[in-house]
């Protein structure tokens, strides 16, 4: 199968999976316990790495931007720059990439292992739909957890930026906070919530699709896991471009 045909085939399979998830959400049975377990695994389990990522990203943004802003005498605007960059772009995208790496790989490996050890067949033989039991709870958990994780990343990014501004460059905290407030408006916050929702769906669908289509034993599990992380990461970055453009058009915001 040539790459274009393969891509279209995968797209078709993911579309089918999406449809089956939607049907599962509508008709049930609904697996609340599994969804809560996944929320714990995906949301709480990812919190530490998301906080660390956000904190140091905010810190390094100030570290790099402050000297340039100071050169132009605009160092009091440093918080504004960090806030806009974090809330609009880096918060959602970095969170999605971290979740794609940590959760996407785990989902794909788990489902892939279940496929090669015939646990998925056993589930179907026992009268349970693997999509409803395994896929839907994970995607719902990602949809709920991703915006929350992104907000955590943004908040700790701003804290990290503030600490670096204060401790290294001696910028007053009040000035920094005021600048941050000037940099964010409601459209940024809404955009920062919409993006992770979409990213959550993308990561969940790709990871589940790759996992459920694993073949070739344990080697196949490794391949599907790698493929899930790579595909999800690239898809997130591509989707981010189009989402940003769509949100700019929607909210008519392009600058500070």
């Amino acid at each position, binding site marked *: 199968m040539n790459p274009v045909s393969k891509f279209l085939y995968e797209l078709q399979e993911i579309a089918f999976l999406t449809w089956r998830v939607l049907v599962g959400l509508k008709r049930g*049975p609904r697996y609340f316990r599994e969804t809560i377990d996944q929320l714990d695994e995906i949301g709480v389990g990812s919190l530490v790495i998301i906080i660390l990522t956000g904190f140091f990203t905010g810190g390094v943004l100030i570290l790099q931007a402050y000297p340039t802003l100071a050169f132009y005498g605009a160092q009091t605007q440093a918080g504004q720059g960090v806030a806009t960059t974090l809330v609009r772009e880096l918060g959602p995208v970095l969170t999605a990439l971290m979740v794609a790496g940590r959760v996407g790989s785990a989902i794909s490996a788990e489902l892939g*292992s279940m496929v090669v*050890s*015939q*646990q998925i*067949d*056993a*589930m*179907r*033989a*026992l*009268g*349970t*739909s693997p999509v409803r039991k395994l896929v839907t709870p994970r995607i719902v958990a990602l949809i709920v957890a991703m915006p929350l994780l992104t907000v955590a990343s943004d908040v700790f990014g701003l804290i990290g930026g503030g600490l670096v501004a204060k401790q290294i460059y001696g910028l007053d905290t009040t000035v920094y906070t005021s600048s941050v407030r000037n940099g964010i408006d409601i459209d940024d916050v809404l955009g920062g919530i919409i993006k992770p929702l979409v990213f959550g769906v993308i990561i969940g669908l790709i990871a589940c699709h790759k996992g459920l289509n694993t073949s070739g034993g344990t080697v196949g599990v490794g391949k599907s896991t790698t493929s899930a992380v790579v595909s999800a990461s690239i898809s997130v970055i591509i989707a981010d471009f189009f989402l940003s453009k769509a949100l700019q058009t929607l909210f008519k915001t392009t600058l500070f």
Partner: protein
Amino acid sequence: MSLAEHLVELEAPPEIDFEAPLDNRQRIVPAIEFNDVELAFDDVVVLDKVTFRVRRGETKIVLGGSGTGKSTIINLVLGLIKPDSGQICIDGEDVTDFDEPEMMRVRKKIGMVFQEGALFDSLSVYENVAYRLHEEDVDEDEVEHEVRRMLRFVNLEDAIDKMPNELSGGMRRRVGIARALVGNPSIVLFDEPTAGLDPPTARTICELAIKLRDLEDVSSIFVTHEMNNLDYLSSEYAVVDDQGNVEFETEGERLCLINTEVIMLKDGNIAFSGKDEQLRMSPDPYIHRFIRGK
């Protein structure tokens, strides 16, 4: 009533109530029926117009080398894959074109024993065996009673709280059998359940299949490539003695086995169908080589 009316009545197909309990159904309807089933993956023909029936209470042993389509037959019965053409009936119901939700209903009366057990790694033995009941929201007291009953049947009640990774290969298969039997399915499918097991453990698995056949009236397909399994299943039967203990007797001591037949697959076709004695006397060189192992 005229002779013509009598003939019409005789030729009329039996009326079957699919929702009625198994015992009340007419036993004449086969538990599993394949009619001219064909399946190919790309250019490779896996099954070529395969036709056979499994009667109620019968065990059909499916023999054949690797890649001859043995496990494919089981996957077709379960509806995990669909045939390219032909007809598959379960309890007289044509399931060939059933979609997934309809197959879910059919699968409730089928138990499946996988080659490696296929136990859910994250669930304990209790939770694995109780899986189907938990999915149906059965009361927990009832679940525990049923799980213990099934684990007693496979002689593994002591392992109820263990995790699958704490079990030996044979124990995993037996837990798999217990899980398959929950809900008293009328059909049980065995997909090479003794592969890779030592002879005594393989014998234990076969004894469980014999008990299901002779004491529980279960119809089954037993896929294997091991001749020992054929020997056990086609020459021994289970009876309950006066003290209520299960005994295994050899065919000919008191009874003659009529509820076990063999089919052998070769290149997607049925190379043989009949009794084990006929199989052993077959002049077909392929069968001869398979039986002798050379």
